């Protein structure tokens, strides 16, 4: 088992008292598996991802990665952020290598990985551009390249396509799928887009809205690789409708 989330609780102290955002979430993920997490916005799914990333700590329970408890960020995990999170003063290539600095790799290896990651997200030729010169979708690709270049065992994606247009989103989804399957990387995708969750996930974890609890884990029994036309299949639509109905429950 790659990732083992055991009874994680998290609350925030607010002016009006204790606000529980995650209430005993458990989840297990295999190596190379792509899991989507859906839930209403504000349901604590992003917080869960941040705990796994090591940006926040759980108040109770624990997160085990390869049997080791997570106590902070580490090179075995990389994150793709919701909004543009590139350093505006660095070029595309420099932004991609930014993520590898702490790994202590030889510069040759870094260069090789930068070129490879940029190639894989389809940005070859844009190496010297700065973020300001790129569209939102291209910036998100750079964010993905930065994460995969570190060759993480687990890729954490926090609504990575929420801020791009529908056309770009489709092609980014496709890219993420191929990037994950090529690298045999596991990925956790937080999203509020049910279609996206079904399209990309091997399993879909449905979280209740605040506090977050696991309502159901849905196996997506659709073949891979998946292309956008899979959305027209009946099984796809059944799964989508099933999850949608679950999320309508109070």
């Amino acid at each position: 088992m790659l990732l083992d989330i055991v009874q994680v609780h998290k609350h925030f102290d607010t002016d009006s008292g204790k606000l529980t955002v995650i209430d005993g979430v458990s989840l297990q993920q295999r190596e190379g598996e792509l899991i989507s997490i859906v839930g209403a916005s504000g349901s604590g799914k992003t917080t869960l991802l941040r705990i796994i990333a090591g940006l926040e700590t759980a108040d109770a329970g624990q997160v085990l990665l390869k049997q080791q408890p997570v106590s902070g960020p580490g090179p075995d995990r990389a994150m793709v952020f919701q909004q543009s999170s590139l350093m505006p003063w660095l070029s595309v290539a420099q932004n991609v290598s930014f993520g590898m600095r702490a790994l202590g790799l030889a510069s040759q290896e870094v260069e090789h990985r930068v070129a490879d990651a940029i190639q894989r997200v389809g940005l070859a030729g844009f190496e010297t551009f700065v973020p300001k010169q790129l569209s939102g979708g291209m910036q998100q690709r750079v964010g993905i390249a930065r994460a995969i270049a570190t060759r993480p065992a687990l890729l954490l994606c926090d609504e990575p396509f929420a801020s791009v247009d529908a056309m770009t989103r489709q092609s980014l989804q496709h890219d993420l799928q191929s990037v994950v399957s090529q690298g045999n990387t596991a990925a956790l995708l937080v999203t509020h887009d049910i279609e996206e969750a079904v399209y990309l996930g091997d399993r879909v974890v449905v979280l209740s809205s605040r506090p977050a609890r696991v309502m159901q884990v849905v196996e997506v029994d659709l073949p891979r690789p998946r292309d956008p036309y899979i959305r027209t299949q009946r099984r796809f639509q059944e799964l989508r409708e099933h999850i949608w109905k679950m999320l309508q429950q109070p």
Partner: protein
Amino acid sequence: MENAATAVRPRRIPLPAWVWSLVWLFVVLLGWQGLSHYKLVNPIFLSSPLEIVVSAYSLVKSGEFFEHLRQSAYVYVIGVVTGCIAGAILGMAMGWWRRFGDIVDPYVVFFSAMPRVALYPVFIMLMGVGNLSRILIVFIGVMFPMLFNAYVGAKQTPRHLLEVARVFGYRRHQIFVRVVFPASLPYLMAGFRNGVTLGMILVVVSEFFGAPGGLGQQIAVTAQFFQTSFMYAWVLYTSLLALVFVKLTDWLERKVLWWS
């Protein structure tokens, strides 16, 4: 009807703005020269443009200009450079170590609110009218705007960029060097721009209080002796130097902040 399009008269190309600026300058200078020529204003208060140009030229020819420029530049460069560096370091430190910033903040606000030229007599009392007290007044004047800019710059570093660095395993000092510092650069440049112009003013004003030489000292001396055309020549040189510095700063800013 078919010829309607070709019948349109060719559009006149408007003259560029700088041409009109020059035209206006010429008109004003001409009027000014006229006022002086026909003795419409007392030459004690206003020299004619030609006289000023002649005086300005003689200052260069005799080498006086360079000697006084050297004396002012010495105070200016040392004061501005040390003031900017000190302000940047202190401001960044205040923005980065919040606790330190909170503790120092009230003192900084107090000193920044006070008109700092008011301290000059104190410096003269303590250190005399030598270069040191002038450097100090420039230093203090330049440091505060720089400090504020650096403080704000370090504090406003976008949270999500800090998190990116944390996720990818950067240690605290690495985050400072790789994220906070570059993110603060636009603010540091703004502080520097402030310092460049403010330093100029402070050098000139501090020399009014008495100095062995310098641009400001010459303005004061020539005014006292009613060498009006020379006084205007020194004012002209001071303004031109300020203009050159501002343009150089613009250029530097474009170089440093090319990505924004």
